[in-house]
C-alpha cells in the first residue's frame, strides 16, 4: 500500500486555508486544559478569518485571544477565561464593550455541551438530561429546552445536537491517513470527532500505520473521519501534551497581565502570533531553555498489552 496515495498530511496553513473558512463553526479545546490547538488558533488569526463560531467546553486562553484578534462572532461554551489565573480580558471587553466588536455568547455547562456533541455523534436530534434544570442558562440558550418525559413524570432538559463545521483536535500520534492515538483525558474530543463535518488532526508525531494498528484501543479517532492531518510538534503550547511536554503555567499568567488592556493585548498578539509565520518560528521565540524545561523529564510508559492470538 502506498502511503502517499492515502496521505492527508498538509501544513497547518493549508489545513486552515482549506477547511476553516470565514463563518465556520469550529470545535477547539475539546480536551479541556490538555492538548489545546494553540498553533491552529494562531494560524486562523494570521489568515484573518472572521465571524467564526467557537465551540468548546472550557477553552483556557485560546478563545480569549481569538476573540481579542477579532476572529469571532459567537462563542458556544461552558466557560471562557484563563483557567489557572481567572478571567479572560478580551472576552470581557468583547461582551461588555464590543471591543474589537460585539460577540454573541451561548452559555452551556460542561455536561450539556458534551451531550450536545454526543447527540450529534449518535445521530439523534437531542438528548435528555437533568443538568441545568433551574438554571438561568435556560433563558439565554435556546438549544436547551425543558420538556416532560414521555416515559414518566420527570421534567428534563432537551439538549439539541450540535454539529460543528470542523473540529481541530491535537493528538499524540497519527498515521498519514489520520488514524489517531490519544491518551490522557479526552474531554469531548471523541464525540467531537464523530459529531463534526470535518476533522483536522494536529499530531505531535506521525507514525507508520503498524504503530496505530498495534494498539487499536488507543485509536480514538479512526482515519476515515479525518479530513486533514497536520504534523505540528509543540502545537499545543502553552497547554500540555501528555507524554511530550508540560503546561507552561507562567505563559498563561504572562498573557493574563499582558491582555489586561486592549493596547497591550494588541502588542502581545503581534509579538506572539502575527509576527511569527509558523509554529517553528514561535518555538524559536519561546527559546530552547524554556521548551527544555517543559519537556517530559520522567517518562512513564504503560505496561504492554498482548494483542496476539
Amino acid at each position, binding site marked *: 500500500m502506498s502511503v502517499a496515495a492515502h496521505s492527508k498530511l498538509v501544513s497547518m496553513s493549508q489545513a486552515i486555508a482549506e477547511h476553516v473558512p470565514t463563518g465556520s463553526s469550529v470545535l477547539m479545546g475539546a*480536551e*479541556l*486544559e*490538555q492538548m489545546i490547538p494553540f498553533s491552529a488558533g494562531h494560524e486562523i488569526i494570521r489568515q484573518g478569518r472572521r465571524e467564526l463560531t467557537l465551540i468548546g*467546553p*472550557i477553552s*483556557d486562553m485560546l478563545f480569549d485571544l481569538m476573540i481579542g484578534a477579532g476572529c469571532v462572532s459567537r462563542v458556544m*461554551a*461552558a*466557560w*471562557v*477565561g484563563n*483557567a*489557572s489565573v*481567572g*478571567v*479572560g480580558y478580551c*472576552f*470581557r471587553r468583547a*461582551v*461588555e464593550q464590543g471591543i474589537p466588536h460585539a460577540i454573541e*455568547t451561548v*452559555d*452551556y*455547562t*460542561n*455536561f*450539556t455541551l*458534551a*451531550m450536545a456533541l*454526543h447527540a450529534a455523534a449518535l445521530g439523534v436530534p437531542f438528548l435528555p*438530561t*437533568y*443538568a*441545568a*434544570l*433551574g*438554571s*438561568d*442558562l435556560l433563558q439565554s440558550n435556546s438549544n436547551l429546552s*425543558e420538556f416532560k418525559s414521555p416515559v414518566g413524570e*420527570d*421534567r*428534563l432538559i432537551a439538549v439539541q445536537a450540535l454539529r460543528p463545521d470542523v473540529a481541530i483536535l491535537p493528538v499524540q500520534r497519527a498515521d498519514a491517513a489520520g488514524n489517531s492515538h490519544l*491518551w*490522557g*483525558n*479526552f*474531554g*469531548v*474530543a*471523541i*464525540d467531537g470527532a464523530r459529531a463534526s463535518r470535518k476533522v483536522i488532526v494536529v499530531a505531535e508525531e506521525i507514525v507508520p500505520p503498524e504503530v496505530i494498528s498495534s494498539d487499536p484501543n488507543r485509536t480514538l479517532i479512526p482515519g476515515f473521519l479525518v479530513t486533514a492531518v497536520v504534523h505540528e510538534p509543540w502545537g499545543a503550547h502553552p*497547554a*500540555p501534551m*501528555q507524554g511530550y511536554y*508540560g*503546561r507552561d503555567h507562567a505563559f498563561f499568567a504572562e498573557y493574563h497581565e499582558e491582555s489586561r488592556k486592549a493596547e497591550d493585548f494588541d502588542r502581545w498578539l503581534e509579538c506572539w502570533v502575527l509576527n511569527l509565520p509558523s509554529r517553528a518560528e514561535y518555538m524559536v521565540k519561546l527559546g530552547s531553555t524554556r521548551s527544555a524545561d517543559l519537556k*517530559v523529564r520522567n517518562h*512513564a510508559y504503560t505496561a504492554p498489552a498482548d494483542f496476539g492470538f
Partner: protein
Amino acid sequence: MIAFALAKRTHAPRATGLFENGIMRDEPASTLLYTMGDPSNLFQATFCGDMISVMSLLQQGRVNVGFLGAAEVDRFGNLNTTWGSRNGQRVRLPGSGGACDIACLAQRTVVILAHETQRLVARVKHITSPGNGDGAGWRSEQGLPAHSGPSAIITTMGVFRFGPDGEAFLASIHPGISLQEVAKNTGWTTRVADDLVPTPVPTEDDLAALREIDPSHFWTKA
C-alpha cells in the same frame, strides 16, 4: 483538588476523586495542580476517559459531594459565575464550566468563597448553578434530583448550613471573627444557629498536609 487531597489524608482515605475532564483518581496527584488537566493529574490516575464517563456517574447520583467556588452566592445557596457587577457596570464572568452540572446533580454541594458583601448577596443576579432557588421545595419543582443540593457554604469567616426552609444560617464562626463582622460582610440578614459553635481550628496534621500539598500557597494564600 486540595479538598480531595486533604480528605484522603484525614477522614476519607478511600475516597475517589472525579474530574469532569475524564479523570478518576484513587490517590491525589503528587504535585500541586494549577488545572485538573495538569500532566501530574493524569500520571498514575485510576482512569482516564471522556467527560461523559464522569458526568454520567454524577447524573446517576453516585457522586457524594461536589466542591464549587463562585463569584456570588445568595442566602438560598444559588451561585452566579456568569454576570457580575463592578461600580454599577455589568461584568461578564467566565460562566458555569461544570459547576451547574455539579450543583444540579451531586448528592451535596459545598461552596467555598471569600466572605465579602459583594459576594454574599441577598439574591444572585443570575442563577448559573442552582442552590435552593427561593426556598424549600423549589428544587423538586424544577425537577432536580431528590438527593441533591447545597450542603454548606464555607467562607473566610464561618460556615453556613441550610435549614429545612432552604435558607442558609451561620452554623459556625471562625476563631477571631465576631458576629458583627459576619453581619457587616453578608448581604442579607444572617440567621445564626442557636447552637453556634466556633469552627474547629485545623489540626497540626491538617496544616502539615495542606502545606505539603500547596507549598507555595498558590491556592491557599490568604
